[in-house]
């Protein structure tokens, strides 16, 4: 039996926005959990009221932009933010925007472009990702070398805390060290500290020129050697990415071999020269069909190809292993990795973000993820890196044989979560235990 | 008004920005806030405000300052940390006197020609051979005791009072200074040689005494004043025909030219005479550059790489940096090479090397490393105290460079 009071929910958001028939609920949900109801609030006060209601009855509550992960909220409430999708303000003088969390990432990008501005973070999923989700996940991406990780672009927010209280923080200043840095700390907290209801987003002027250089390589190793050459030549593109042969076709139909995508955003004059330099390095490094792309539509197509592959892997995080090493250590990392995985070109999926030294592996059916991650972590650590995120920290502590450090880290994480959400109501599916 | 009240405005002008952290060698090496201008100034202020009673730790903070003056150059507010430390030392002297050891062994001995002469004779005769017998005493507090040079007899006893030349163009009074008189007499001879080769008649008063700088630095203004008066009277009364009063010791020159004015600021009747004296004081390289050196007379067949160390009193006291370098580069086949941080203190800093040797030894080690990095054969400088400190430091780490006064290098390039 669920404790959810459907009629009270209807009283808060209106009948039309409380959905409790399983068939209608399905399109808002993913995962195995079975929430009792989907609710679509339209304002901060509605969100606050729903959270307060959940608190009274100790009901679990999961939040998503367009789709909610149902893990841990069986019998509880799935809150979909898609009705809170307005662009509230575009302040060109200060290069900031105020948006509601349910605004789709792709729509936000279009609006931003209309004003000649730039919002660098990549969407997690091209079609359904929201701006709120972008900051809730708060990742780095393949443009982070140039623009910084996602958190760089959040200046403030309004948030409904797990108690229902509303917290506002931040301002349009691009420099702000007042108080503790809860603004950036909240980025990546996956909705465990609270639910974003308004976001104050930092923007940049759009780059004067965008170009891409693409090429294909017979092996991952040759492509990475070319990346190293570029770094040694002090060339740091906006993106410098590599997709293995198995996935390359998804990014660019008809591709044979491993696909290299180098994205150059910047000034016109240097852009021209660097594009030529990149093209010659790729060609000399063994690349074929090396091409400089200047035309806008074709550029967008190439970048979208990358984002599509990126999103495919994001969609199956439970079946991927991600790790980082120093970018110049990548050739060694891949050589050693191949001993574990076999031919990387034929692996179900491998992408490399060359400037960040980041690799994401899509695992073949039947692979023991933890086992592979443990081996990969050892490999990465020997090259100054580690498996990404929480899992990486646990594996690292294992390698140090330092159970105490891991215990400290998790107890600190859990204490923080507990302080903000004493009843453990919000997004219980998010685990801080790895 | 007390001594500290007189400098209170400057004490109060330090706004603790910490900019002097970069300048202060004693801070760099110890990382202790008591060992940097900002810390010292705050302590002096605490004493001035009556919040702190001078104690041993306070004395250490004040006495360990190298007085190199680097903080004064670095301070955006123009606070002269070295002057404030001087005031604090004066204040200490007045309140507590000077420690007997410092007083009798160092200051009084230096102040009295007789006692200094006696000291050097003792050191030469018995002391040095005695010290040589003690293992591990090669480097007493970082000072190279065994190789500490001593003159066979004081320079002043080796030369006549007047050295004439065939066609005198200038008349120079030579203020020799303690170090050149008793330890580095060869350098004193070099100075005379360079001067005479450039048509200067040299007057060397026999009854000259210590300039008073060591006593002054320890706040003993009374003794410093006594010696200063004696020096001024000697040169102005008995040898008034000397056009200039020249010294080859940067520290002496800074004292004679600048600090004498401060010493006698409270004695208006005598001050005019002091001013007259100060205006006549010149440093060796400064003077040579001014009268012009005949480069054609300089000969040298051995290619040499030379680097130059700026003594604190030269670079920050007198602001003389170009002239010695120019003179060096006049000598044929000398390749001049600048060292890193040439203008930073060598660690000698008067008596600091004896009393705060932990600090000064490290400072010297840094300096010798900077010297080594230049691959120079010779290190030139303009202060005998630096010469001894640098040579000792170089010997200690087993490097080969020879340290010479600019005058020595020039003198070698003149035919005898």
């Amino acid at each position, binding site marked *: 039996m669920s404790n959810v009071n459907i009629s009270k929910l209807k009283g808060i958001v209106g009948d039309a926005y409380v959905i409790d028939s399983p068939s209608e609920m399905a399109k808002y949900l993913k995962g195995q959990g079975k929430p009792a109801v989907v609710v679509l609030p339209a304002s901060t006060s509605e969100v606050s009221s729903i959270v307060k209601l959940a608190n009274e009855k100790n009901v679990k509550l999961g939040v998503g932009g367009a789709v909610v992960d149902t893990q841990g909220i069986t019998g509880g409430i799935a809150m979909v933010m898609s009705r809170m999708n307005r662009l509230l303000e575009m302040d060109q003088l200060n290069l900031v925007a105020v948006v509601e969390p349910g605004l789709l990432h792709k729509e936000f990008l279009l609006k931003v472009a209309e004003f000649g501005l730039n919002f660098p973070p990549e969407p997690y999923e091209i079609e359904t990702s929201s701006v709120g989700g972008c900051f809730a996940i708060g990742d780095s991406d393949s443009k982070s070398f140039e623009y910084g*990780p996602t958190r760089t672009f959040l200046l403030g927010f309004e948030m409904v805390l797990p108690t229902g209280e509303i917290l506002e923080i931040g301002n349009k200043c691009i420099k702000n060290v*007042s108080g503790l840095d809860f603004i950036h700390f909240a980025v990546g907290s996956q909705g465990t500290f609270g639910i974003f209801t308004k976001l104050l987003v930092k923007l940049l002027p759009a780059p004067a020129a965008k170009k891409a250089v693409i090429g294909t390589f017979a092996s991952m190793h040759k492509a990475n050697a070319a990346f190293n050459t570029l770094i040694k030549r002090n060339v740091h593109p906006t993106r410098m990415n590599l997709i293995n042969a198995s996935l390359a076709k998804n990014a660019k139909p008809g591709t044979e071999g491993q696909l290299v995508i180098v994205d150059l955003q910047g000034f016109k004059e240097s852009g021209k020269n660097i594009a030529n330099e990149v093209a010659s390095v790729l060609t000399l490094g063994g690349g074929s069909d090396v091409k400089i792309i200047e035309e806008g539509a074709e550029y967008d197509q190439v970048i979208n190809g990358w984002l599509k592959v990126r999103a495919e892997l994001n969609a199956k995080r439970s079946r991927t292993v991600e790790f980082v090493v120093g970018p110049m250590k990548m050739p060694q990392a891949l050589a050693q990795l191949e001993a574990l995985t076999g031919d990387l070109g034929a692996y179900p999926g491998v992408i490399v973000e060359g400037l960040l030294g980041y690799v994401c592996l899509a695992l073949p059916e039947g692979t023991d993820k933890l086992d592979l991650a443990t081996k990969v972590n050892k490999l990465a650590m020997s090259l100054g890196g580690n498996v990404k995120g929480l899992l990486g920290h646990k594996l690292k502590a294992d390698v140090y044989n330092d159970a105490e450090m891991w215990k400290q880290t998790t107890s*600190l994480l859990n204490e*923080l979560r507990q*302080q903000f959400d004493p009843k453990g109501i919000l997004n219980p599916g998010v685990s801080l235990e790895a | 008004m007390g001594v500290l009240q007189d400098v209170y405005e400057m004490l109060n002008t*330090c706004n603790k920005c910490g900019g002097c952290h970069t300048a202060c060698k004693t801070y760099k090496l110890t990382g202790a806030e008591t060992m940097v201008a900002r810390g010292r100034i705050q302590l002096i202020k605490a004493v001035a405000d009556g919040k702190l009673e001078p104690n041993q730790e306070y004395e250490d903070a004040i006495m360990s300052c190298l007085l190199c003056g680097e903080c004064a150059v670095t301070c955006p507010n123009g606070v002269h940390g070295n002057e404030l430390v001087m005031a604090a030392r004066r204040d200490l002297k007045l309140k507590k006197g000077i420690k007997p050891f410092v007083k009798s062994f160092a200051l009084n001995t230096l102040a009295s020609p007789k006692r200094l002469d006696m000291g050097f004779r003792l050191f030469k005769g018995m002391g040095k051979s005695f010290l040589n017998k003690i293992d591990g005493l090669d480097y007493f507090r970082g000072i190279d005791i065994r190789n500490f040079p001593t003159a066979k007899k004081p320079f002043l006893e080796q030369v006549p009072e007047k050295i004439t030349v065939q066609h005198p163009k200038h008349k120079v009074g030579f203020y020799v200074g303690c170090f050149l008189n008793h330890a580095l007499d060869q350098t004193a001879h070099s100075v005379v040689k360079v001067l005479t080769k450039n048509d200067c008649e040299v007057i060397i008063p026999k009854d000259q005494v210590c300039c008073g700088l060591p006593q002054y630095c320890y706040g003993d203004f009374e003794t410093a004043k006594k010696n200063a008066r004696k020096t001024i009277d000697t040169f102005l009364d008995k040898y008034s025909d000397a056009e200039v009063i020249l010294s080859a010791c940067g520290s002496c020159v800074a004292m004679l030219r600048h600090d004498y004015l401060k010493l006698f600021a409270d004695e208006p009747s005598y001050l005019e005479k002091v001013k007259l004296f100060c205006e006549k004081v010149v440093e060796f390289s400064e003077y040579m550059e001014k009268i012009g050196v005949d480069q054609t007379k300089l000969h040298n067949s051995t290619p040499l790489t030379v680097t130059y160390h700026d003594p604190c009193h030269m670079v920050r006291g007198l602001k003389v940096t170009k002239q010695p370098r120019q003179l060096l580069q006049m000598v044929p086949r000398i390749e001049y090479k600048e060292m890193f941080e040439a203008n930073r203190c060598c660690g000698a800093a008067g008596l600091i090397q004896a009393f705060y040797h932990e600090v000064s030894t490290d400072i010297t080690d840094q300096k010798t490393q900077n010297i080594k990095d230049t691959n120079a054969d010779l290190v030139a400088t303009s202060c005998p105290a630096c010469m001894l400190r640098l040579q000792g430091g170089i010997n200690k780490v087993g490097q080969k460079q020879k340290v010479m006064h600019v005058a020595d290098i020039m003198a070698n390039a003149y035919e005898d």
Partner: protein
Amino acid sequence: MLSQAVVKRLKEIVGEKNVVTDKVGLLTYGYDGTLLSGEALGVVSPTTTEQVVEIVKLMNEHDIKLVPRGAGTNESGGTIPSEKSVVISFTKMTKIHEIDTENFVAVVEPGVINFDLQVELAKKNFYFPPDPSSFKASTIGGNLGECSGGPKCFKYGVTRDYMLGLEVVLPNGKVIQTGGRNFQSEPGYDLTRIIVGSEGILGLVTKVFVRILPIPRAKKTMLALYDKVEDASQTVADIVAAGIIPTTLELMDNLLINTTEDFTHAGLPRDAGAVLIIEVDGYQEDMDEQVKTIGEIASKIAKEFKVAQSAAEVDQIWTSRRSAFGSVARVRPSYGVNDITVPRSNFPKAIGGVLKVAKDFGVTIGVVAHAGDGNLHPLILFDQRNKEETETVHAAEQALCMMALDLDGTISGEHGIGLVKKKYLDKEFTPAAMEAFRKIKRSFDPSNRFNPGKIIDL
């Protein structure tokens, strides 16, 4: 007073020389760059993480608080010993463990002086972008604690953006690592970010992984001179509005031009109402276009616009700018530095606000600003010995903070809160935000052992 037993144990942990308990020593660790002062029970200077752990455990046993300190050049009072506490000074943890230019990371101990790191990096043609004006003296640990800014923030961001990972000793004496050598290494929550700028109230950082970048291939430094400071502020707004991101956009008013000129003799015109120092960097081939655009924008209002011709000239300009704070005691012996920041479009209004405060309170204010960031440092000049004047200055400072908040700004853009601005914090933040800070502090340090009383009270 520390008990003999505690002193003995401290000396066992860090060595005789690294413990200070005498009055003279303690006096010199009681102040920082502010007008405040306090007195610690002792000063201890560890040289390893293990020593830090032992010190924390010992202090916990005896219920003594710890106040972390780097060079003590901060402007927030963040290192003032405010309760019965021992100062833990990191100036002896000065090792640069590693500089890995190929992988854009350096690993350093917290006591490394920012400038010393820059010198080592420069040998490899790299640099560490955050360089607060105090960078020749201040430490990386201190920069991290206050989340320092500096003149390059406009393009490159603040200290927080260059911290990849930390080793942290928690108030319970346990050690954790946050982040790592690369992006994407945080465990769950971004712990690195919450520790950066926390002024030591959450943990003691003993090792820092910093992001380093290659020195840009080309750089151009420009000067624009104005009759009035308001005119300069308009150029700032115009440049931002034109979508240009210079590396720096610094402003000094007439008072600062003169005090710095007394010190540096850089040749800035003493009669100018204000000067803007504008710098762009990047690829050589992009310089001309940017300089041209900026020149056009500035020349609309400026009475003179010029591009620095030599490296020496650039050095002189920066020496002037960096000595701005220090040099004002040439006018009056004390200064109160403010760190108000407003949205960039409000910058001209903020300048107007500062002038109004100066007039209303009858105080002398010199203005130096990271104008491109909307970050102003109005320096109120006075003499601390004059009680009445000091009161007026405090009132004026409060007015400045309120003015910034009214313009949707913040009371601190880069200096931190410490003790100096703590009293204004609840004017900027709602009770819910203040409570969020407390929740974070409680999670790390429930017994309030580290740097108590700074930023917030529990």
